[in-house]
């Protein structure tokens, strides 16, 4: 079964009378528990592909299926529910809420989903424990190290038990050593949960963590 399937996905932006093709008939099949690295230069369409896969953008043409749900025809409300229930994001700048503790940052996801508070708290504690943050769950992001913050962000992405995790430039602001630690953490967590992941990166040194590497150039996907 595919965790993510793109079929001839095209994304075109209008700029006055000009058309800007951000993604040009891209097709991609990511299997369950598969980790795919997506590399390419700036402006190549990596972010557009990730956004379409995560239901943040709708494609101009083509089909997008996540865990066999066809999401390309979803309206904004359905996409919101899809993001809440079916995908997890790890953002480039971690993007934790600064006034929430590590545990509360995970519970934000459950808050939007109006999930049972007890179950959500148990899930957050379990994730933080697995991520080695049991003793840091009451700390605010400002009291955590960079690596700890990254781990909280990873935990948050898994909070809704997603079929697909989308990871945006996880090592862009890190040196090689810390970048590798973060990638090891992400990959081990993804593998531990048998979840599929798409990692967007421009850092070729990190691609060996993925099962498969794809390159995107000018909106066109090419095998790595």
């Amino acid at each position, binding site marked *: 079964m595919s965790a993510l399937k793109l079929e001839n996905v095209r994304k075109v932006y209008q700029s006055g009378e000009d058309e800007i093709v951000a993604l040009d008939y891209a097709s991609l099949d990511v299997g369950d528990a598969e980790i795919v690295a997506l590399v390419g230069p700036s402006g190549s369409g990596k972010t557009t592909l990730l956004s379409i896969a995560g239901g943040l953008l709708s494609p101009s043409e083509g089909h997008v299926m996540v865990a066999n749900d066809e999401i390309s025809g979803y309206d904004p409300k359905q996409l919101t529910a899809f993001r809440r229930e079916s995908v997890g994001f790890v*953002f480039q700048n971690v993007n934790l809420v600064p006034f929430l503790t590590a545990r509360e940052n995970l519970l934000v996801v459950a808050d939007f989903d109006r999930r049972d508070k007890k179950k959500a708290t148990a899930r957050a504690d379990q994730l933080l424990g697995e991520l080695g943050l049991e003793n840091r769950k009451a700390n605010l992001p400002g009291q955590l190290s960079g690596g700890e913050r990254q781990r909280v962000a990873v935990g948050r992405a898994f909070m809704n038990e997603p079929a697909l995790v989308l990871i945006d430039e996880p090592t862009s602001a890190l040196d090689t050593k810390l970048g590798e630690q973060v990638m090891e953490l992400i990959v081990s967590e993804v593998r531990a949960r048998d979840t599929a992941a798409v990692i967007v990166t421009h850092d070729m040194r990190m691609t060996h963590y993925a099962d498969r590497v794809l390159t995107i150039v000018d909106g066109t996907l090419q095998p790595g």
Partner: protein
Amino acid sequence: MRIAFIELRRRPGRFAPAAIALVLLTLLLLVLGGLLDGLYNGSTGALRAQPGELLVYSSEAKLSLVRSRIGPKTIAEVQQVPGVNEVGGIGVGLLGAAVPGQAADASVALFGYELPPKGVPAPPSTLGEVYADRSLQAVGVAVGQSLLVGPQHYPVAVIGWVSDTNFLLQGGLWGNVDTWRAVVASARPDAVLAPGTFQALTVVTETGANPSEVAAAIDSATSATTRTVTRSEAVNSLPGIKEQRATFNSIIYTTFFVAALVVALFFALLTLERIGMYAVFKAMGASSRQIFIQVMSQAIVITTIAFVVGAVVAVLASLFIPAQVPISLTLSRGVQVAVGLVVMSFVGSTISLRRVIRVDPASAIS
């Protein structure tokens, strides 16, 4: 919504500018409202307390209690009008009164009455005895004292307190008709009314009777020598009352508008600052509605807290306001200000709604 409350708890300083502005606006609204109520109550209490739904004046008096004169013949005609249940005469003298132990005279409105107004006992049986409005305590009046009323210092003894019965900002004294006549005769012999003549009548209508129809029937029965109005019309025709209310209400409504602007501007800026965070929330599946509820909840909580603080400050400040300033802080005014501010904070926060809706979740990525 939990996130909104956590932020309020952990980052109170972030909301301090809006909260301080709202505390000051609450204080202003309560003081303005208190002054309006104080002026209104102090001017109209005697008429609002009248037991009858209708008040009858002589037609040429133009609804002035002081100028009006109703003779015994007219009173008899009024009593005969269908729908009239009870008729009572009222008279008033606006005078100064020397209070024992006080250097300055108190301004009093000494009423003679037949039918007891609300909260006022039946007329004292003894000449020279009066019930005094409790507000006169502020100028040193006490039960058991003898006040010397008018230029001839006619003595009247205070035998008890009544509340909210002042007239034209003068402290109400309520005695029997003979006391009123005696005081007026002492102060202004030229203005003494003939026996059986009053300045106005309070008319209690029969159950089920339409007061407006009874009023028209009274004026018809007296061949238009009277002008009969409802109690509220009588109150509104007192000099300056409508203008006073209109002026104060204009200031109060403007202040409510400013409160909405404060909330609108503050939360518009806060939303602008948080666009990145809201984009992340939306990427994680938050709806615009959920985010807007957070903004609105914060606006309402801040406004409510600001109201409570502002109300406490207003009550404390009122303790230091001189007794001559007619301020009346009432629960109903407080509720009105609280509800008004909460509504305005909701209205103000809706300015952020458009911006929240326009936050693009895709901007959370790169």
